[in-house]
């Protein structure tokens, strides 16, 4: 009898232990010049990306995860470079417009109910989506404000793009040709953004070279920062 009681007691204890066992709820996955990026930031970024792209979370690959972390690191690097006072914050209308664009990408969303269901599927609430969109627009504006002054597109480049790239593409697709005057502003903007894209890559590369970036979770034998 006492033996049975003892066994019973042990079972109860083990059950209780399991019930109250600790779970890792967050951890540092990277540090950028002393600023931390948490597992929860990473998860949230992945959820958002999956939602925006209309992909189920269970299709997210290892490469996707790594790329998402790289982007988080880039965003942190840029955030550290640009003072928030230097740019104009996005308005509520800008945020609404962007959310509307995302919503249009989801063909399965027909009403508020399906919209909320789609969000929930990716573990996002409406307020979290709004936050992410706001942050995204803010960062985009930061980069734009920083890089655009150093970008110049001359008329010759616009004409060359129109003649050598756009017209052949239109002809090949059988679409109606448009005049240069009609599309010049948009081509100019496109070329400007391409140049900004190049500048951004160079800028990020130099920022990474100058920065202290650690990924403790990826290190083995030695802690991300020091010796274990």
């Amino acid at each position, binding site marked *: 009898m006492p033996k049975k009681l003892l066994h019973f007691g042990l079972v109860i204890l083990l059950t209780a232990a399991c019930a109250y066992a600790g779970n890792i709820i967050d951890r540092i996955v990277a540090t950028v010049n002393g600023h931390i990026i948490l597992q929860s930031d990473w998860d949230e970024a992945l959820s958002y990306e999956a939602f925006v792209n209309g992909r189920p979370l269970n299709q997210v690959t290892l490469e996707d995860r790594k790329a998402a972390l790289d982007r988080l690191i880039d965003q942190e690097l840029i955030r550290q470079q640009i003072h928030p006072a230097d740019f104009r914050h996005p308005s509520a209308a800008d945020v609404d417009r962007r959310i509307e664009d995302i919503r249009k990408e989801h063909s399965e969303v027909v009403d508020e109910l399906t919209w909320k269901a789609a969000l929930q599927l990716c573990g996002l609430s409406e307020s979290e989506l709004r936050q992410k969109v706001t942050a995204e627009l803010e960062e985009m504006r930061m980069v734009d404000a920083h890089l655009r002054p150093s970008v110049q597109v001359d008329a010759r480049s616009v004409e060359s793009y129109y003649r050598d790239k756009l017209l052949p593409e239109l002809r090949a697709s059988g679409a109606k040709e448009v005049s240069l005057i009609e599309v010049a502003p948009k081509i100019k903007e496109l070329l400007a953004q391409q140049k900004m894209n190049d500048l951004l890559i160079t800028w990020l590369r130099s920022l990474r070279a100058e920065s202290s970036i650690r990924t*403790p979770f990826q290190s083995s034998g030695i802690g991300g920062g020091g010796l274990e």
Partner: protein
Amino acid sequence: MQLTGTLVRSAVGRALASVSVGVLLAFLCATALAQNQAPEQTFPLLSAIADYQDLPVGDIEFRGVESHKDQAELRQMVVLKPGEPLERAKLRESIQALYSTGRFSDIQVEAEHTPDHQVTVVFLTTPNYFVGEITVEGAPGHPTDTQIINASKLQLGELLTREEIERARVGISDLMEQNGYYRSQVSDEEQPDAKTQQVAIRFKVSAGERAHVGSVTITGKTGYSPEEIREIANIHPGDTVSADGLTNALQRLRKKYQKKNRLLAQVTVNHVYRPEKNAVDYTFDIDPGPVVEVAVEGFHLSRRLIRKYIPVYEENALDEDLLNEGRRNLLDYLQTRGFFEAKVAIKRESAGTSNDRLRVSYVVDPGPRHKLVKIGIEIQTLSPTGIKYFDEADLRSRMQVQPAGRLFSHGRYSQSLLASDIRGLEALYRAQGFAQVKITSNLIDNYGGVPNQLAVQLQVDEGPQTLVGALHIMGNKSRSEDELRSVIYTQEGQPFSDYYVSNDRDSILNDYFNHGFPNASFEASAKPMEGQPYRMDVTFTVHEGDQVFVDQVLLSGLYHTRPYIVQRQLQVHPGDPVSQIDMLDTQRRLYDLSIFNQVDTAVQNPDGKEREKNILVNVREAKRYTFNYGVGLEFQTGQPTGGASPTGRTGVSPRVSFEVTRLNFRGRNHTIAFKSHVGRLQQRALLSYDAPRWFNSDNLRLTFTTFYDNTLDVTTFTSRRLEGSVQAEQKLSKASTLFYRFQYRRVQAANFASNFSPNQVPLLSQPTRVGMPGFSYIRNRRDSDLESTRGSYTTLDAGVAAGYFGSEANFSRLLVQNSTYHLFKKKYVFARSTTIGMEDAFGNTVILSPAAAASQTCGTSSTAPPCPPVIPLPERFFSGGGNSHRGFGLNQAGPRDPQSGFPVGGSALFLNNLELRFPPVTLPWLQDNLSFAIFHDSGNVFDTGHDMLHSLLRWHQKNPQLCMQQSTYKQCDFNYVSHAIGVGVRYKTPIGPVRFDFGYNLNPPSFPSFVGTAPNQVFAPKQASPFNVYFSIGQTF
């Protein structure tokens, strides 16, 4: 990272419509996931926090942090608090706060449900480690341990990462390769200490075989054969590769070309290592460049002056900077010669058949020759008292423009020099609050009606002086206003200027840094006071930031030294604010122990945001044994002749010296030293034990010394001395030091002159044991020990030799010296010094005058009575020479043996020196290193103290005729004050002035002497030479 975005797709509408979204969105994530990428592997996303979110926090724990104290500190830092709901934002902030301490490399957070529906939050931490002691095993000697440690570039206290260690290993390998060790292996071993988070790092170096020089190839039109180049470079196939070897080779080659005026020669070297042969092949690429000729046109300048003023010769290089420096030097030279409007241009032209010559010409247009005869300065002041803030002399002393004088026969002037002077003077006024100062100049040509004679008239308008009306110091919480005011210049009533505010900023921030506020910042603002435009209301605002305190002081590198030796030098203590000045002070004090080669102090985890930080002290112990040995030749004038010449003879002898020093004896900073040198002329040995910081006091020092000396004291005899002493030194104050000592010595005089009074020899040559306790007091208040201009210097030395202390002679000894220095007219120094010494015999010991001693018959035969104890000859006072009385030769003052005329010293000494030291004279070549002095020395050595007191007013030898006659020579009296005047020349050197003194004795003594040997001795009285010349180093007193 996916940053591309193809905006133009299949049709223009879609392509250009998407432009507004922008390419930049790509990096921001939303459009980044590849749409058609197949899932390779899926990962569950962590959403565990959702299960705990908004539950009340029960307990907060830290795993990986052992100390309860540390846990309590961390608990205060985290934003999450027990009882409050668990929120993601707070959790994030808490992790950031913990990470910012710099103590952790990784942090995870675990949550556990508790039975009472709360959540326990556990921070799982992985510690960071920091660089501690670095040691090296297997260093080959070149490079040394220290060079290897430096090559690792690891900084004490910095965060240690695997990348840092890897970088360190690469740095060490590079260093080894530079020294020829291409096959070296470098490994490392870390010993982390979880308690202190320090890591001791040991680099193990296996040097391997040193590489040798393979081939040496020469390229370029060198002008020499390859063999010659190898000889010049002193680098040959088969030589051992070394860092110095290659550097020296390059230097030798460059020098060779430079000597041939090929100042543009380029010599470079490439090297390739061939591992199969462990050899390094060198290729020297040489471009000798043209032969450079430098000439001056338009003005005659000797070759010597061209070499002096054009620095390309001195630097052996030719570049724009050096050429321009040469131009400036020439302009300066011309201006000093009166060509104030001179212009110098530089012209370069190639010459020779293949442009192998480059001629650099300085084309001089000297213009008319002027002479600046006067600089007038007129100062207008608004001061109600009419007192000018700076007088004319102050302003003149700061000017480069100078009127004709000794140094510049035509004066020194140019428009740019004058403009520069005016700028400098205006800045001087502005620094004193004269913000509106205005200085104008007027150049008067043909001054006084003389053609080309110039005068410069400066008009200084001081303007109003702005003073500080009120000073407010804000933001200071930890430092009181009084404390801050004590370190700054800006005060009410003082001049107000940016210059002083800037200095005060540095002073205040330094004060804060030294009180543990590394992030303190400072702002200053000032506005005129109401109704008082020249009184400023000044506000200094301090932002203190967080104060950082010392947690622990961690010592490393102690192997032989006892820790307490280091601990008692520490100026940083747990709980103190972290102070850079205290750390530097600790470092200085540890270096002062002279037992460490290197001392480093650092803050552990310098970038971490912790309230308490560990201070690291790492030392590298010096080698404990030092051996010095040598063989040489000693040369000495004034050796005892054993003959009749009072000036002695010159002796030469081989000499062997040996020294051994043992530092850090028994782990303390005590030192044992044995020093000896043995030659025919001099034999000395010394064994000493030195214990600084006796009784753990900075002011006490104990020294034991045993000393054997067989050497010359005066020309009269040779002194043999065997001495043991113990001395305690007590520093009473910065200026005053007291020495307590007991000396026990056996002294003996020998090698007397052959014609020395035979009756005195047994008396004076008897070996005497002297046991003498005594003390010395030194009070040094001079502004400089080498070149004193102000202050005073006093010494008092007293001792008693008595039978109680084992002494065979009973006497007391007192020697007092007082010197004072007075600066007047800002450049003249009047120095004076008075020395009084007295010895008094007691008990059975007697003092005998030379005449009385010569009449003694003791000890001359077996039947003669034994000699009474006398004060031993080496214990007596002697005087005369460059450092005492400059009217006598070395130790030639005072009583003399009536038979030989040799000085035999006395029992009393009086010496008074007066010296007027003139300021340095600026002369070509010697600059301002030469100066002159005139002096008057008076005094003498006397038979007894009584004789001294009664002879102080006697300025001439008493009845010198008695000394000059054979019948009365024994009555010759030397008790009088002898006077000497003279002139001195001093040349300033880093070790003190080199000094030549020419002394003329106004009343030299006459003294009897006999020449020849008994019984054919002839009475030949003499008079000491009045002329004396001395050469020595250091001031007289």
